[in-house]
Structure formats: structure tokens, C-alpha cells
């Protein structure tokens, strides 16, 4: 499953072009409303995988970064009405800094202790926002959408294309990390941290970098939420389901290859949207839970792993 540099960028250009064509031709806004969520999860799952998949540090705090991104956007809108692009950039910067800080505090912990610490961070941040009047406290804050920018005819479509661009950036970063020496170092950390350190891998530095990049992308994904919903409240922006989904999607798709989180997010995200429309949004959590258990037990390498096995089998038969 190796794609060379050109193949990846051509593929990305095609995806972006298709997104734009869809925005220009499809009239029903609802599709974009749903697709936005799915693409947003591509960003979150890809971001999670940089630390959780490559380095093996299971982060339960995706919703903390996501919520911070959303609230950075709220702040900037209320303060000086900055445009969406700048909201995202600012959210990414703050998310990166937060990732670095959280990493400094927690990355010396291993395994389950790190995971618990990331849950604590979510709770602390949500509590802080609940008690912050400027951004609406526990009741949340209403946001007025500015008029939509040319050439888009609806704000939701614009947000959708924006999310696709974010997803391409996130996947490109993950792919670069995976195929470079950084990725090799992170994998060494996951396999055996002590051996990694003794073979020259600066483990703490690499983990901090991974945590900061991952955090920046998660917060960037949260920034457009304010515009998407025209309303932000702590309970939904910091909702634990973001943490659960961002972890489940890469595991279901496969954590070892950048395509894994993308497949997992497209698949699970779409199922979630369908279930929400046809049955209820409460059932989403159940769907995620069941799929997660099935994959962890039956296919721990995820869908990518199943493909690799299948290919090997076919190869074996041919020889």
C-alpha cells in the first residue's frame, strides 16, 4: 500500500475538485451538513493516530482539543470578528501549544496512566469554560454567521470544502510523519520505549512533537464548529463522544498506515450519520462501541490489516 508522492497529491487534488464540483452542483444542503461531520472526523481520526497509532500513546482527550478549538473560534468572533481562516489558524496554534503543555505534564506517564491523565485534562478544560462568562458559560453562546463568501452559495457548503482542505492537510502531515525518520522513531517508541531511547531516539522530544501536531490538528478541526452550528455550548463542544470516535475510527481502519484512520472515519462517520437520521443519535455510541469490540477482538490490525492479509493470501496462491 505504498503511494508515491505524485500519486498522493494527484489523489488529493481529485478529492478537492470533486468536493468543489459537488458543492457547485448538488442543491440539497443537508448532504453537506452530514458530509461535513464525516470529513471532520477524518481530521480528528488522522490527528489522533499520529500519537495514538504511531507512538502507541492512547489519548482520551480528543474532545478537550476539539472543544478548545471551537472556543478559540468563539472568542475571536466575539472579540474582533476574525474570518474563518484565521480562526482555524489560531485554533491550531493554541491546540499545538496545549498539546505541548499537556505532553510535558503527562507524556512521562506510560500506558493507562497517560490515558487517564488526558481524560482529566478534558474535564479541567470543560469546567474552566463552563465558568467563563465571556464565552457564555454553561448555557453556551449564539454566533451570527457572516454572509457567505464567493463563489459559494451556502455557508454549509463552504464549511464542507473547508473541512475537506483541512482533512487533506491533516492526512498529508500524517503521511509525511509516517514515511519519514520521525515515524520510524515513533514506531520504535511504541514497540519498546527503552530500546528506542538506547538506540538514539530522543523519545520525549518526539512524543512532544507528535502530541503538539496531533493537538493542533484536533483544535483546527474544532474551530469551524461555531459557524457550523451557529451555537456553541461546553457540553457539546467537549463531548466525550469525540474522544471515543477519534480513537475508534483509527483502530477500526488500522493504525499502522495513514489510510487506516481515513477509512475508519469515512466508514464509521457515515454509519453514524445514517443511524442518526434513521434511528436516533443515541444509538451512535452503541454502534461505535460494538464495532470497536468486534475489531479489537477479531481484527486488531483493522481494515488495513485485513487487506494486507488478503493480499498475502492471494500472493501465496499465485506462487
Amino acid at each position: 500500500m505504498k503511494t508515491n508522492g505524485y500519486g498522493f497529491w494527484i489523489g488529493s487534488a481529485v478529492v478537492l475538485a470533486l468536493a468543489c464540483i459537488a458543492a457547485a452542483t448538488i442543491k440539497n444542503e443537508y448532504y453537506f451538513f452530514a458530509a461535513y461531520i464525516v470529513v471532520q472526523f477524518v481530521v480528528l481520526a488522522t490527528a489522533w493516530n499520529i500519537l495514538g497509532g504511531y507512538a502507541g500513546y492512547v489519548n482520551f482527550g480528543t474532545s478537550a482539543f476539539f472543544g478548545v478549538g471551537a472556543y478559540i473560534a468563539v472568542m475571536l468572533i466575539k472579540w474582533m470578528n476574525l474570518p474563518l481562516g484565521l480562526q482555524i489558524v489560531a485554533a491550531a496554534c493554541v491546540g499545538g501549544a496545549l498539546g505541548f503543555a499537556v505532553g510535558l505534564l503527562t507524556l512521562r506517564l506510560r500506558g493507562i496512566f497517560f490515558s487517564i491523565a488526558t481524560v482529566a485534562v478534558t474535564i479541567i478544560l470543560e469546567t474552566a469554560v463552563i465558568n467563563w462568562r465571556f464565552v457564555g458559560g454553561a448555557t453556551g453562546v449564539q454566533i451570527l454567521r457572516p454572509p457567505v463568501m464567493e463563489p459559494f452559495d451556502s455557508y454549509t457548503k463552504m464549511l464542507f470544502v473547508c473541512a475537506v482542505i483541512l482533512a487533506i492537510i491533516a492526512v498529508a502531515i500524517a503521511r509525511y510523519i509516517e514515511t519519514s525518520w520521525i515515524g520510524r522513531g515513533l514506531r520504535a517508541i511504541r514497540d519498546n520505549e527503552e530500546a528506542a531511547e538506547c538506540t538514539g531516539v530522543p523519545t520525549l522530544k518526539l512524543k512532544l512533537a507528535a502530541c503538539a501536531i496531533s493537538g493542533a490538528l484536533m483544535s483546527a478541526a474544532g474551530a469551524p464548529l461555531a459557524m457550523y452550528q451557529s451555537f456553541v455550548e461546553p457540553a457539546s463542544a467537549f463531548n466525550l463522544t469525540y474522544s471515543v470516535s477519534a480513537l475508534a475510527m483509527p483502530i477500526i481502519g488500522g493504525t499502522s498506515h495513514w489510510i487506516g484512520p481515513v477509512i475508519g472515519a469515512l466508514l464509521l462517520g457515515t454509519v453514524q450519520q445514517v443511524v442518526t437520521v434513521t434511528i436516533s443519535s443515541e444509538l451512535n455510541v452503541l454502534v461505535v462501541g460494538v464495532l470497536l469490540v468486534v475489531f479489537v477482538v477479531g481484527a486488531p490490525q483493522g481494515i488495513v490489516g485485513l487487506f494486507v492479509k488478503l493480499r498475502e493470501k492471494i500472493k501465496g496462491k499465485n506462487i
Partner: protein
Amino acid sequence: MTEWSFDVQTMTEPLLKITSVTKRFGGFTALDGVNLAVAQGERFGLIGPNGSGKTTLINCISGALRNEGGSIQFSGEEVSKLPAYQRTRRGIARSFQIPRPFTSMTVLENLLVPLEFVAHRNSLLRPDTRAEAMEILQSISLADKAGTPSNQLSQVELRKMELARAMAARPRLLISDEAMAGLSGNEIDEVLGILFKLNETGITIIMIEHIMQAVMRFSQRVVCLDAGKIICEGTPTTIVANADVQRAYLGA
């Protein structure tokens, strides 16, 4: 061959100099004021009964553990406060008593980690690290396993890969922690041969070994550790004859 004898006092700047190093685990003192000096190019043996602190000493030298007191100087520089990866970059490499392969990688990829993070970390040109890893594997006849996932290796192959990975960091000092435990006679000879060959290229080697015969054949100088203290030091022949060593090993 003449008997080698190194006198710590008259040694012109040793490569590794350990002064009163102490390590405690809770209330238990695993290393108690250890002094040690290893010369450039030396083949140095470290023996001692189980639990005497050999691995702990190696952990302190390599940076996997921090010593509480004393100093560790490598090539004249104090390294005891440096993180492990910095020490590896300065030239201290080790193998692990219980092999710690990077299990998601092939044998060759295991070697790429130190090649990329130590040997070529500042190379502007992209050196052919795969060819270099292959060369190392050939030198220890492990080349046919280059593409094998490292979690499918036999015991002796794992041990050899541990050494190969340490070699790939291009060390000046290589510490081998019981690389021969559990191996057959032929396999022991093979690993010994590898270490001799490395030493001929100028690499200083500290060998920790439980198998007396192997240490005695290999080492120019041997130190015996017991309960965290050095109880004696000398040539292999004097060590074997030493009453304290016999008492420590045989409880006699």
C-alpha cells in the same frame, strides 16, 4: 599472547571512568560506590552472581537508569546527567539481557533506527542506510533474515540482532549484557567471534556474562561484582583463582 594488565592509576585517560556510582531501589542498594575504568580498545569482562547489580550498572552507564551518587565519565565528559539517547550519540551502545526488538519492524528496519537517529542524523545527503544495514547484517551472517519480522526470530537470531542494532549506532563502546545466555556451544562461539571482530576494529567492549568460559576467553581484564560492590579485579586467571570470587559464586 602476553597477559594484559591495566592499572587504573597509571592508565592514560580511560574511555570510560566510573567513580563511586551508587544506585538504590527504595531502601535496597543495588550499586554501592562502584569504581571502574575501561581503556580505549579494551576487552573488559564483568561477572558476578545473579542479582549482583551487573545490569543495573549497565543501565546507569547507558542512561536507562540515573545513578544517585558518583560520576560517569565517557571520553573525558561527564555523562551521568544526559538522557540515554544523548549517550548513544556520544558512542555508548548496548544490547539488552532480555532482547527488546522493535517487533513491528523487520530485522533490517530495526537497524535503520540507530542508523537514522545516530550515525546519519546530520547527513545532508541521503545516505543509503539500507545498504549499510545490510552490510552489518552480512558481517554477522544475519543477512538472510533482513526482511523477516523481528518477532519471528529464534533466540540466537534475536541475540545477534540485538548486537547488530547496537553496532549500527557506530559505537566507540559496546556493552553486551549476557548475549550468550541460553545459547548452544556453537552459537556461543559465533557470538564470541562477532565480538572479537568488533574489537579488532577498535571498538571497546564490555562483556557481561554468566558463562565463565566465554568471559575468560574473551576478556583482557575482569571485574567481579557481588551485592553491588566490586570484590576483585584482575586477569582472567587471577580472577578464577580468587577466593572471594569462588565464595560469591559457589557460596563456599
